């Protein structure tokens, strides 16, 4: 006896025919077969009318479809209205949430925190200007810093990065150029043209925690209590800000100007002093490096250069684990695989 199909008003042969005639799933079709696609889209003459007119797919669940929760609804609304403008960045400048919340400030990325502002970054043109000043004109870093009001460390970093960029360009290494263009459009930026606000403070002085306490120092009324005295009062090792200035040559220049040295001459002297300080720094570095090398005796064979240095094997500290100690010592367990020990390097040279 053939298997029976319940609730079916068409005979089995008819079902088989329908199956053969039904459109194939797209994955089974060859990619370009316009003829086959055309035939499947037209209704076949042998398909019974009542089949196509039958009730739509039976729903097995009797429960109502889940409604959207309130946050979900609000989220949809946000994407349609207030959040719409953020989907695609248009224009030439930053676009933060604060612009929607009508706070009057366009550079606040987090509406609740007005203390954090998105400050301008150096544009690609500005970076090129700095690189040219240092590498082509040969200006000292401090002078470039003072001229463009950019921190000395940033000037050095810009030059370092630009050098890498130029090297990569020469090597034809892959770079993220469309990304860089897009990011530059999204950020506030400075071209260092000089007619805008100074880029950043260049004479930062770190606030020492010793100087954050309130101190009562009795002094005579006639005494001149200067910054130096104040530093001394906070602690013997506390330096006055005069010694912590990043570009002390600038203070000297200002002092010269107060002492009626012409502006042009003062600036010239400033340039000479910064150049001198840079030279001194380089000489000091060289001296240290030379001294380090002098401790080592070099034996140059054809293949290797052996560098031999004298060390004191006894200087291993109280527990035999001193940082500078050299070599493996017997009797001291080597515990660098132990759990909970900090194994991440602290510096990369």
């Amino acid at each position: 006896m053939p298997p029976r199909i319940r609730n079916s008003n068409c005979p089995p042969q008819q079902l088989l025919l329908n199956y053969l005639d039904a459109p194939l799933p797209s994955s089974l079709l060859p990619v370009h077969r316009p003829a086959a696609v055309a035939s499947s889209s037209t209704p076949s003459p042998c398909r019974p009318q009542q089949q196509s007119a039958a009730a739509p797919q039976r729903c097995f669940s009797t429960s109502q479809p889940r409604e959207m929760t309130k946050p979900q609804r609000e989220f949809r609304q946000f994407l349609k209205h207030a959040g719409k403008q953020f989907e695609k960045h248009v224009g030439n400048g930053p676009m933060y949430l604060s612009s929607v919340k009508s706070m009057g400030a366009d550079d606040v990325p987090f509406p609740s925190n007005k203390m954090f502002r998105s400050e301008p970054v150096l544009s690609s043109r500005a970076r090129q200007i700095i690189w040219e000043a240092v590498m082509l004109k040969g200006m000292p870093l401090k002078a470039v810093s003072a001229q463009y009001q950019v921190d000395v460390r940033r000037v050095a970093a810009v030059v370092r990065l630009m050098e890498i960029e130029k090297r990569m360009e020469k090597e034809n290494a892959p770079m993220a150029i469309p990304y860089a263009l897009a990011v530059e459009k999204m950020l506030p930026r400075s071209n260092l043209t000089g007619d805008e606000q100074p880029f950043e403070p260049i004479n930062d002085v770190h606030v020492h925690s010793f100087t954050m306490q309130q101190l009562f120092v009795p002094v005579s009324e006639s005494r001149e209590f200067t910054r130096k005295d104040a530093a001394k009062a906070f602690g013997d090792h506390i330096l006055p800000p005069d010694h912590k200035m990043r570009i002390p040559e600038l203070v000297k220049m200002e002092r010269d100007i107060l002492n009626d040295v012409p502006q042009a001459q003062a600036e010239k002297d400033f340039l000479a002093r910064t150049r001198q300080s840079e030279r001194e720094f380089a000489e000091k570095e060289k001296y240290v490096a030379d001294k380090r090398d002098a401790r080592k005796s070099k034996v140059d064979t054809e293949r290797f250069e052996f560098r031999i240095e004298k060390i004191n094997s006894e200087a291993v500290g109280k527990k035999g684990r001193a940082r500078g100690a050299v070599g493996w010592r017997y009797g001291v367990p080597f515990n660098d695989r132990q759990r909970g020990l900090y194994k991440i390097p602290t510096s990369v040279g």
Partner: protein
Amino acid sequence: MRCERRILRYHSLKRGRVRQTWNKYNLFNLFRMRDRKGNFGTFFQQKWHAKAATRAYHGEHIKEKQWERMFSRRLLSAVNMDPAYMAKYDGSEQAAGRGSGRDVKPGRSEKNVARNTGNAEGMTPYMQMTFAPQERRLDISVFRALFASSARQARQFVIHGAVKVNGKKMQHPGYLLNPGDLFQVDPEKVMIATGRKKTSKSESSSTPKTPTPEEDAEPAEETAEAAEQSAEELSPEQLKAQHLDGLKQLHQHARKIIEENKDKLSGGHKKEIRELSKKIKEAMNRARKVGTDVQETGDDMENLASLMSELELTPAERAELRQQQQAEAPAAEAPTNPSTPDYPQLRTRTPVPTAQTKFDMVESQILKRLLEEEKINPWDPSKPYATPWRPRPYMSAFAFIPRYLEVNPKICAAVYLRHPVARPGKTEIPTPFNMHTSQLAFNWYLRRR
């Protein structure tokens, strides 16, 4: 050993936690974040809630114990000292009078009043520096430099070996950067992280067929003789340039049509135009590739030109044209031409408008720019992101670079200049919370609860 916390309902709308991501759910959560007004519970409860909210943003992938070890109550700040002020005064003027400086008499000019300029107004927001130690971490710095779309993704980049510190591969996301450290991320990874996702629809429909030798050979027999003749006279480079010019003109023409009948065109028509301009771009790409057969580019030109001429017709006219073409070329012939499955009208020779079209200076400049863009940002289906590269949606709302980093986005490298500091009136720690919340969190970690 598990080093990372699990993600549980990361962008939950119900809890509304703000995270270190560029996600649209995160944008919404940030949008509706409200400052709690007044005191809402016991001091402990307030601290608890502040800690929970801030830790959901600041390094939520870092274990609590690890963060507790990192936390430092020493908050860094800096003040700018104006050289002109330093030169003129030695500080004794601040101790003059009764010990706190002389009063300025009302009405006298303030010109001679000693003032250290260069600092913003307002108090120094020390409490916003609570999570400053985390900003030293390599993964978070990579995120802050806009090289990854979330801190977790940045962490993954580090673990997968895509990040170098001072030229050496660094695989510890918890590496604490030292001032002066240079980190560099693989540009390809950055493009993936910050670019739009590749949708199967947009990419697969426009995938060009790479010509196989057989396909190249076939059209060579039947294509226009004119191209053959000119190929004999001109060098391959010249010929290629010529074809590129033609393609440029076509592109222009398509743009013109769109510009002129912006509101007149129907939806389907617009779609067709868009498809056409996409095909022109593809053809340009193919033509520009080194070693491409001139024949092939010539074919492209013809196809596109015929498509273009069709576009200018009204729907009724187009239907008519189609009928004509069908009558001319029997349907059986279509599948015999496997090299051009995408363009059914290929072989029909409709009048080509390219040569006759005149272009003015502005248009040619626009085209030049377009071609330049095309050159630096090409269409390339082999990339794992949508090409030409575009920034991912909702990126701009999160795009900022804090001052303690100097970033060169072109080479995807950045220098960690110094530790972040608080200055009068501003903080360098990007945190979405107000000072009150940060202060409560700071108090939590002081461990006097």
